[in-house]
């Protein structure tokens, strides 16, 4: 058999915590392999890709893989499913676990049959030899006695040339089930005897209850429980429609104090630049020689507003607290971290010895694009379950809460200054960023702090930590993609992370990479056009990375509308942008064509990406397409609105997103690199799409919009 060892980097993250074969797989029933993973599905279809990897390496069929339920009892702790790391971390760990056990199987088969290893072939788990007549299966070889053995980092893996599943567009394994109705999501889960909950929440995280007319509530809803702990308030009813009616009524009986704690929505730049911050140099490169004379100075500011996750399915969680055991069902991206943070609360309330045992089960939710309220709703339902005396509870957040109380993507300001020479050389690139941190996920707070929205509402409240950022080794947060990818003689990148957080922020797809790429790629266009240079050629002049150059060429070459302007009507513009996600992940180039008139419409998008070895080309394309469409929506439409006292974005009417009649035609190409490690695709198009749109608007109208979203109103009021 031919074998190859692929370069591997981040796999240690998953394998160090979960080092044995049994953490990842088991031969649980005849003809089947049970796969255990900690990375969860939330719309990106990761389990399909992981199934392909495992079935490939073990030489079994896709249908022979069973996915073990994901929970904090049995699943490997792989931290959070985020940052486009799942294929790198989990995929590689799965591949190595499978390769390790396969080597044992082959050795056992050879020793039992006297076959030379080179003669062995495996199909559907059946092992045979071209030189002997012996036939055995994985399930004959008692391989489960190896489950406590360590996964070998150097287990020999199949070479790409032998792949029959990896690299093929296997259809999503979960789609069929979802299409014909029935139970598919956590929102559909039913526990016998389950009761329905709703909560009421202030549209400002500093809001507190002044008064509740509890007697009035019980007069009307005598069979509904009203639970309150400080400003955390909710209802439990036997029936969902009753819970919905009860919470609507309760809303009329609660008086809130909403402090004027929110910044001026119309002037976020003043807030971002004046709030106290922690300054950090993200990166700096000193010039080897002094810059030439006669340079022209450029300076631009780029600003994104707060944006909402706005998943179509409201966040949901179920819980049952019975006999000193608390079970929670959640669509969290990180069930172990969620467990750790809920235990902070339990430990404070009951002490180490008195607290219940806690198990968190993952159940898939609707699309997730970062740290949405999944963790918050899980803590909410745990608080309600504490008083429910063993009854199972289901809590669904309202659309209003989903938009106004969940973590948002931070407002984000970037200033770029640079000096440009006539020959296109760029000097003194100085970039300054102001933003709130991009993570307040569970599991990362200081002692005594707790990031759940309810934790600050309790009568005995926890401190809400101000959002931090993932370390640069995980891609950074507000500083993600902040260092320019171009070959510059010098640069300095400064990041000011805000130490105040009037509006709760956390991770949203691509984190700071969206705004930073938009800013850098807009600025590159400004520089190029000031010299009357073609913006794509100008970029290529400053790039030497061959994988960058390849995606740029591809994105342009495959767009038949890129060069031919002869049929353009008024308002048509073209724009281009490039980035390598996190500066370490997928290479991605995006060209767009827009039509600017009574609205700005993106009519065409051409995407080329290099994600290393492609596991599932259709899955990768789907992620790139989805990211690009979502980025169009963010860039053209989205902005969280608020007064000084309250977030006023409460329904879809307040928060329009891209509609069917507004989506572009898409062309996507992948440059497969079979001998390079796989990197994630889910976030690579966010930044480049935004910048390409901005550049196309300038191309069409000669107006550069430096404050998102790019609306017609903004265009008409910009000089």
């Amino acid at each position, binding site marked *: 058999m031919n074998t190859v060892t692929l370069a591997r980097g981040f796999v240690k993250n998953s394998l160090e915590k979960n080092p044995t074969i049994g953490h990842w797989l088991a031969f649980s029933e005849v003809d089947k392999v049970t796969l255990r993973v900690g990375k969860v599905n939330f719309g990106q279809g990761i389990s399909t890709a992981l199934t392909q990897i495992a079935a490939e390496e073990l030489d079994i069929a896709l249908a022979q893989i069973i996915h073990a339920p994901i929970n904090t009892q049995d699943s490997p702790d792989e931290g959070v499913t985020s940052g486009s790391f799942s294929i790198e971390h989990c995929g590689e760990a799965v591949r190595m676990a499978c390769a390790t056990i396969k080597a044992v199987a082959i050795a056992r088969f050879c020793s039992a049959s006297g076959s030379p290893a080179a003669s062995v072939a495996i199909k559907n788990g059946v092992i045979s030899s071209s030189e002997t007549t012996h036939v055995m299966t994985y399930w004959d070889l008692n391989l489960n006695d190896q489950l406590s053995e360590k996964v070998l980092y150097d287990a020999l893996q199949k070479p790409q040339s032998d792949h029959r599943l990896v690299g093929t567009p296997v259809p999503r394994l979960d789609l069929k089930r979802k299409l*014909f109705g029935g139970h598919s999501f956590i929102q559909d889960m039913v526990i016998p005897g389950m009761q329905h909950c709703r909560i009421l929440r202030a549209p400002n995280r500093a809001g507190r209850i002044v008064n509740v007319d509890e007697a009035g509530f019980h007069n009307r809803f005598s069979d509904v429980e009203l639970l309150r702990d400080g400003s955390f308030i909710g209802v439990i009813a036997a029936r969902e429609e009753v819970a919905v009616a009860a919470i609507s009524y309760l809303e009329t009986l609660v008086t809130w104090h909403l402090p004027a704690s929110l910044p001026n929505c119309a002037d976020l730049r003043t807030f971002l630049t004046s709030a106290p911050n922690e300054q950090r140099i993200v990166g700096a490169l000193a010039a080897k020689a002094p810059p030439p004379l006669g340079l022209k100075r450029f300076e631009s500011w780029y600003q994104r507003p707060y944006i909402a996750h706005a998943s179509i399915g409201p966040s949901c969680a179920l819980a049952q607290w019975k006999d000193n055991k608390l079970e929670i069902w959640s669509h969290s991206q990180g069930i172990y971290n969620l467990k750790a943070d809920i235990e902070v609360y339990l430990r404070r309330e009951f002490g180490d010895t008195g607290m219940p045992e806690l198990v968190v089960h993952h159940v898939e939710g609707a699309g997730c694009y970062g740290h949405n309220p999944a963790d918050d709703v899980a803590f909410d339902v745990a608080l309600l379950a504490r008083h429910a005396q063993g009854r199972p509870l289901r809590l669904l957040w309202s659309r209003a809460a989903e938009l106004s109380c969940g973590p948002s993507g931070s407002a984000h300001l970037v200033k770029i200054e640079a000096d440009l020479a006539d020959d296109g050389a760029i000097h003194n690139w100085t970039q300054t960023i102001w933003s709130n941190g991009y993570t307040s996920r569970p599991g990362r707070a200081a002692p005594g702090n707790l990031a759940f929205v309810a934790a600050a509402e309790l009568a005995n409240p926890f401190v809400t930590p101000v959002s931090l950022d993932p370390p640069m080794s995980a891609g950074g947060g507000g500083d993600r993609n902040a260092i320019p990818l171009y070959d510059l003689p010098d640069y300095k990148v400064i990041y000011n992370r805000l130490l105040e957080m009037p509006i709760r922020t956390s991770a949203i797809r691509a984190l700071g990479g969206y705004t930073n790429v938009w800013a850098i790629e807009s600025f590159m266009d400004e520089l190029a056009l000031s010299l009357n240079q073609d913006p794509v050629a100008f970029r290529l002049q400053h790039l030497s990375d061959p994988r960058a150059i390849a995606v740029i060429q591809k994105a342009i070459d495959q767009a038949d509308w890129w060069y031919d302007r002869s049929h353009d009507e008024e308002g048509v513009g073209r724009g281009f942008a490039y980035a390598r996600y996190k500066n370490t992940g997928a290479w991605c180039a995006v060209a767009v064509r827009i039509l600017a008139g009574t609205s700005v419409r993106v009519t065409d998008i051409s995407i080329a990406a290099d994600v290393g070895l492609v596991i599932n080309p259709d899955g990768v394309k789907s992620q790139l397409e989805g990211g690009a469409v979502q980025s169009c929506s963010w860039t053209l439409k989205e902005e969280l609105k608020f007064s000084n006292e309250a977030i006023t974005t409460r329904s879809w009417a307040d928060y329009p997103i891209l509609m069917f009649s507004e989506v*572009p*035609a898409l062309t996507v190409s992948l440059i497969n690199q079979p001998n390079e490690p796989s990197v994630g695709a889910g976030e690579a198009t966010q930044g480049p799409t935004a910048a390409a749109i901005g550049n196309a608007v300038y191309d069409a109208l000669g107006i550069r919009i430096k404050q998102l979203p790019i609306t017609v109103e903004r265009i008409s009021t910009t000089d």
Partner: protein
Amino acid sequence: MELMVNGVKRVCDFPANAFAIYALRNDLDLKGVRMGCGDGHCGSCTVLIDGVPTTSCNLPFGALEGKKITTPEGVGTIEKPHPVQAAVLAEQPGQCGFCLSGIMMSSVALVDSGKRVTESDVCAALDKHLCRCGSQPRIIKAVMAALEKVKSV
């Protein structure tokens, strides 16, 4: 109250002024009807009432009396998918798939209407639906493919 759901007569004791979605999802266990917003804005909860796509999250249950209701459970089966479902499986437009059941209902109504429609008609019909994963381009392709298939039969 008696109603005809997915071709079967069902009896459901549910308040006439409460929203129909809770009766469909909880009392009749038709979870393919997805709860998205409660305002009729996102289209996730769309069902067919006498063939007309209608959001059920803001519709009083009483409005269903004597009507024929179709939910995602009543459209087709894995063995015998509706042309829209077959096209969706071919085009793979689902990312999370949450919005897809409501979109499917509007698409089924359009395809079953037998009308000649263009891509912009499809978009106009689907503008009542929100998709956050960005699957719209593939969904449009799938619906166009289903229309083509039906036309050619």
